[in-house]
């Protein structure tokens, strides 16, 4: 799945990060011991809790459990060891590489664009246009995105043809293939870069004007300002968003599937084929594959949450 933020979302408290601590007036004085009211407020929260248990907690726990059970229902570690087969290891490895490459490149480009946008003193309209477009592009994932890149960089795509006829450069003869590691990475950047811009923009906004003015007054060059003030402050946000982008790409399947069918051996496509019954033919192994995905995206998100909570110190 893709992660999206609301364009124009106004508050800087981390939706992705830790929540605001609630030390406020909402602790109602009315809450004192009215039994009917208490049952009613639980009635209001209950649908949410029940829903979350039924459609988030239980399915996940069920799969985690299933990863440790054989077809007769006995405890086993065979499914986990089964992940060690060359095909599955290769799938995890290429998934990790594509996710890491698209996250890293996306984060760098998105960061550069956010800096240009916010600190480059561009006209005001530019910013809102780019932010709105980022909202759209970060949501423009899945199957249509694959179509767009086939029309652009596929064998008959506009850019491929222009490069060939105008510049005499055949990217396919040069070894490029849209249905490959780099092809998929370039395609994923289409939602990774905008997501980076959306998440990092509030952090860049948080760099107060006074800080660069103070640095300037003290005789610092722009380079020194970034080296000793700007980047150390933005670094946690950057790293945190990086891990979020990684998880985002790791779970994505629709784009890759529409681009390559099942020819590219990445984990979500392998799991998809397993669910469809085309491959592996072992439910326990399927559950183990899913468990592996949860562990990896969960790990990336934990890194994000930990770093984001540290980053927020500067966001006041």
């Amino acid at each position, binding site marked *: 799945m893709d992660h*999206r933020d*609301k*364009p124009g979302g106004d*508050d800087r408290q981390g939706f992705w990060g830790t*929540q*605001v601590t609630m030390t*406020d*007036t*909402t602790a109602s004085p*009315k809450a004192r011991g009215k039994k009917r009211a208490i049952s*009613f*407020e639980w009635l*209001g*929260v209950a649908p*949410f*809790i029940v*829903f*979350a248990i039924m*459609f*988030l907690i239980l*399915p996940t726990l*069920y*799969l985690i459990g299933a990863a440790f059970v054989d077809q007769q229902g006995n405890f086993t570690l065979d499914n986990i060891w089964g992940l060690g087969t060359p095909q599955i290891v290769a799938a995890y490895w290429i998934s990790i590489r594509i996710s890491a490459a698209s996250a890293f490149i996306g984060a760098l*480009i998105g960061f550069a664009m956010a*800096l*240009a*946008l916010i600190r*480059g*003193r*561009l006209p005001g309209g*530019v910013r809102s246009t780019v932010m*709105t477009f980022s*909202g*759209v*592009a970060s*949501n423009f994932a*899945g*199957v*249509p*995105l*694959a*179509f*767009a*890149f086939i*029309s652009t960089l596929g064998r*008959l795509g*506009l850019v491929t043809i222009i490069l060939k006829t105008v510049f005499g450069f055949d990217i396919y003869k040069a070894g490029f293939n849209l249905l490959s590691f780099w092809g998929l990475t370039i395609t994923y950047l289409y939602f990774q870069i*905008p997501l980076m811009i959306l998440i990092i923009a509030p952090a860049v906004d948080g760099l107060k004007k006074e800080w660069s003015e103070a640095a300037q007054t003290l005789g610092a060059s722009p380079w020194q300002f970034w080296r000793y003030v700007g980047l150390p402050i933005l670094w946690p946000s950057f790293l945190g968003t990086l891990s979020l982008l990684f*998880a985002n790409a790791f*779970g994505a*399947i*629709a784009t890759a*599937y*529409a681009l390559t069918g099942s020819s590219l051996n990445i984990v979500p496509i392998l*799991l998809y084929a397993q*669910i469809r019954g085309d491959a592996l033919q072992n439910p326990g192994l399927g559950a183990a594959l899913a468990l592996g*995905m*949860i562990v990896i*995206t969960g790990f990336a*998100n934990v890194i994000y949450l930990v770093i984001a909570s540290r980053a927020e110190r500067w966001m006041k």
Partner: protein
Amino acid sequence: MKPSRFWPWFTLLLGASYFIIPLIATFEFSLRMRRGYYSFDAYLSVFSDPRFQATFGYSVVIGIFAIIVGVLIVVPAVYFVRLRLPWLRPFVEFLTLLPLIIPAIVLVYGYIRLYNSSSLIPFTGSALGTDVLLVFAYVTLALPYMYRAVDTGMRTIDVQTLTEAAQIMGANSATIIARVILPNVLVAVLSGAFLTFAIVIGEFTIASLLNRPAFGPYLQNIGANRAYEPAALAIISFIITWGAMGMINLLARFAPRTSARTD
């Protein structure tokens, strides 16, 4: 010493070209169906395809149900957590973050295994049951965004005072939520609704694995079998996404600007 504006513009235009060129290329490709000159034949072909109408209509209906269920679940939860059960808040926020941590394909795999036709709650045992499961799955996907939108909306109104005022006038909790709180956070709820719609309308993974005739699997099927229609569909999808986001931006202008500072 004023830093020049050259590099900001350069960075931005370079980045923008990466985003705009595929759109131009896709549009150009979608016009190439008739040999020799540009035409909108691919669009005509798409719009006259009965499967396009059927699957798109199906996804719109599923999306609307997902929005309704999402609002019914999220609004009361946010309201009571804000008003009475603040200690539940970290827990609730954690739950709403889970759909971002657990990939959609893993969730749907869990649903298929857990709610199969021989289980206690056999959602996948019938077509209608699977439709219902698809709605719930989409509510789950949209949960982080819906929760976030409603929570932000409720932060800007004084839930406490509104509730007390309504209570003094004799309203019960259901009336308060439906007739006092909901109208006040309507803009936020609608933002969440449009975002849900944008996420749900072309969703492929879950619809495909649940075997439902939705728009996403149709897109994939066309992509595997046709040449020019996919480009036209990509442009159409982009316009739909743009429309949903545009509505959110438009709505943001009507959002209450004053904050009653409940936190």
